[in-house]
């Protein structure tokens, strides 16, 4: 079992009347609400927290890409990852990911990821995403070409890393006479590829066929993860191999304090702040971003999404967050880990308005009291497993 510490870098200073005044924390939320002076302190402390995860012995740290929103302040996760290559020594740095259709040319991703891999001495995990629905409003990229562009760009990047350049590339959306990125990644044949998903069969089958790793995006009911990982294992079997646990990541917020009561008291208000403020508008889905069938499935999945939840018992029942004393958290993780069969947990210890101090306290307890006991859990993967996801 591997533990990756995930930071969204939220904007915690939304006004008290946010819910009445604004219909979304995304795309058109006025950026006059952003304050760069406070923003400086935030980046410093958020980066400190991520670096602390390395000191505490987390297997990796994660950053991701979102635009024009208060939910996550990393329009360029590569900038933050660049800083982290210099602040960390051991952990993997997972950028999950770069939204490929938003990069023109997508060779930029091949270049920047290669830089990060070389700078970190081969610690990069290269996450490739289509990008959330709101990004297509923010960048005005045609959503009806998203999937096609994603696949083309991914193939281009992989080829750029594995085929000696210069070579010519020609596909429906991209044409290059000289593909020849300098530098190239340190990891061979290339860094592990992680693809986050929200459960569409299309993505699951694609990731399974290509032997990449599938990262289940958090904030869904545990039933969704049960179904998704079962589908993933089936898709791998169909592709002719047994799924490696480390091809499956379960995204879930975890919060640990000395007692169950204290954990809930410290964490709950921030989870609700996050749910009611930062998640507002995240479901904005432009037409053509998915097939009509998937769009219908997304609508049906809404009731399994954190945004619709109102009570703590719903949070506990659906394992939307794992919260409690070290012993409680250990038991729950062991239970779900066994059930899901996922070899990777991606966890945000910081959520919404939770302070840097509380986030770090929770990380310490998690790293010292919980991780050593659950790590051995279903560890059936061999040391070579991380290469299994490399094509």
């Amino acid at each position, binding site marked *: 079992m591997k533990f990756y510490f995930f930071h969204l870098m939220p904007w915690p200073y939304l006004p008290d009347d946010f819910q009445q005044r604004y219909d979304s924390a995304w795309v*058109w939320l006025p950026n006059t609400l952003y304050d760069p002076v406070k923003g400086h302190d935030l980046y410093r402390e958020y980066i400190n927290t991520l670096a602390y995860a390395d000191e505490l012995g987390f297997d990796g740290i994660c950053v991701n890409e979102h635009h024009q929103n208060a939910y996550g302040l990393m329009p360029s996760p590569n900038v933050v990852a660049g800083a982290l290559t210099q602040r960390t020594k051991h952990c993997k740095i997972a950028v999950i990911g770069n939204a490929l259709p938003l990069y023109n040319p997508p060779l930029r991703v091949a270049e920047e990821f290669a830089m990060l891999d070389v700078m970190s001495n081969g610690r990069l995990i290269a996450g490739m995403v289509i990008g959330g629905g709101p990004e*297509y*409003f923010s960048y*005005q*990229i*045609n*959503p*009806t*070409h998203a999937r096609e562009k994603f696949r083309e760009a991914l193939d281009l990047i992989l080829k750029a890393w594995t085929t000696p350049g210069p070579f010519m590339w020609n596909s429906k959306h991209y044409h290059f006479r000289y593909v020849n990125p300098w530098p190239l990644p340190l990891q061979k044949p290339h860094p592990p590829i992680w693809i986050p998903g929200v459960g569409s069969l299309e993505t699951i089958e694609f990731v399974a066929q290509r032997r990449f790793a599938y990262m289940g995006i958090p904030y869904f009911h545990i039933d969704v993860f049960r179904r998704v990982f079962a589908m993933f294992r089936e898709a791998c079997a169909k592709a002719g191999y047994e799924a490696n646990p480390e091809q499956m990541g379960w995204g879930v917020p975890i919060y640990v304090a000395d007692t169950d009561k204290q954990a809930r008291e410290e964490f709950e208000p921030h989870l609700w702040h996050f749910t009611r403020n930062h998640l507002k508008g995240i479901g904005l889905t*432009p*037409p*053509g971003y998915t097939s*009509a*069938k998937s*769009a*219908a499935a997304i*609508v049906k999945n809404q009731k399994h999404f954190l945004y619709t939840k109102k009570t703590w018992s719903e949070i506990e029942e659906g394992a939307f967050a794992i919260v409690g004393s070290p012993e409680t958290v250990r038991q729950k993780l062991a239970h779900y880990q066994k059930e899901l069969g996922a070899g990777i947990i991606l966890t945000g210890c910081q959520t919404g308005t939770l302070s840097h101090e509380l986030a770090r306290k929770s990380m310490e307890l998690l790293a010292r009291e919980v991780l050593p006991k659950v790590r051995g859990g279903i560890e059936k993967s061999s040391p070579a497993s991380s290469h299994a996801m490399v094509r």
Partner: protein
Amino acid sequence: MLKFLKKLKYGARVLLSKGGGQEEIIDVAGRSTVMRHGGEGPPLVYLHSGLGESFMWLPFFQSWSKKFRVLVPTHPGFGNSGGFDQIDNIEDMAFHYVEMLDALGLEEVCLGGVSVGGWIAAEFAVRWPERVKKLWIADAPGMWVEDQPPADMFRIMHDRDKLRELLFYDPKGAMASVVVKDDPDEQTMLTAYQSLTVLARLVWERPYDPKLPARLRRVQCPTLLIWGDHDKLIPPAYGEAYKKHIAGAELNLIKNCGHLPMFEKESEFVELIGKFCQD
């Protein structure tokens, strides 16, 4: 109650019209294209809006069919028409229709459309002016008016009330609730999503064609512009913009009408176009 009766009446008219149109599937350069048609006389080609009102033989088609051979194709990607993978932009739509006229052996037609259909008609007319006997354009995007950007329909598309407000002068009226139903069933939602997907492909990055104004001088035929005076999606200023660039074009504002005159002011709409195409 009155609203209910009006809705009922429209439903009855749709039923009564139904027999007037026939459905056909034609092969347009390999793209399977659904077309409804009815009536005899000079050919009148109607290019539908993003709503996909070509999916049914509606009363206004039936009215025209008394004097014209009315042809109502369904755009590639909409409904059961294929060929979406060959459509990337509005020009591709124009090329689809010149090939459709070829396939039907039609040399010259009265051509027009509402909203995106009107834009396609304009793009057609600047490329093949000799094939357009008369051109009419209603409530169409395609141009850019600096201080009056078209509204962002994609932002509010899931909100039925806001959608009715955007599309209708009278969002509480009977026709608003006929066109934008409350509690649509799953099939209706899927069809709407499919239509919006085609629309998004055409307009997402840029809801206009920067080259169109300069090209509009190539339009040679009589041109009628029809706009709802309360079109909130594509304001009447866009009608003015088309008028400015098409020599001799006439702009007709329909009073107390929103973006969809064929539904909100049907009789005026039918008469204006019928008369224009006949003369």
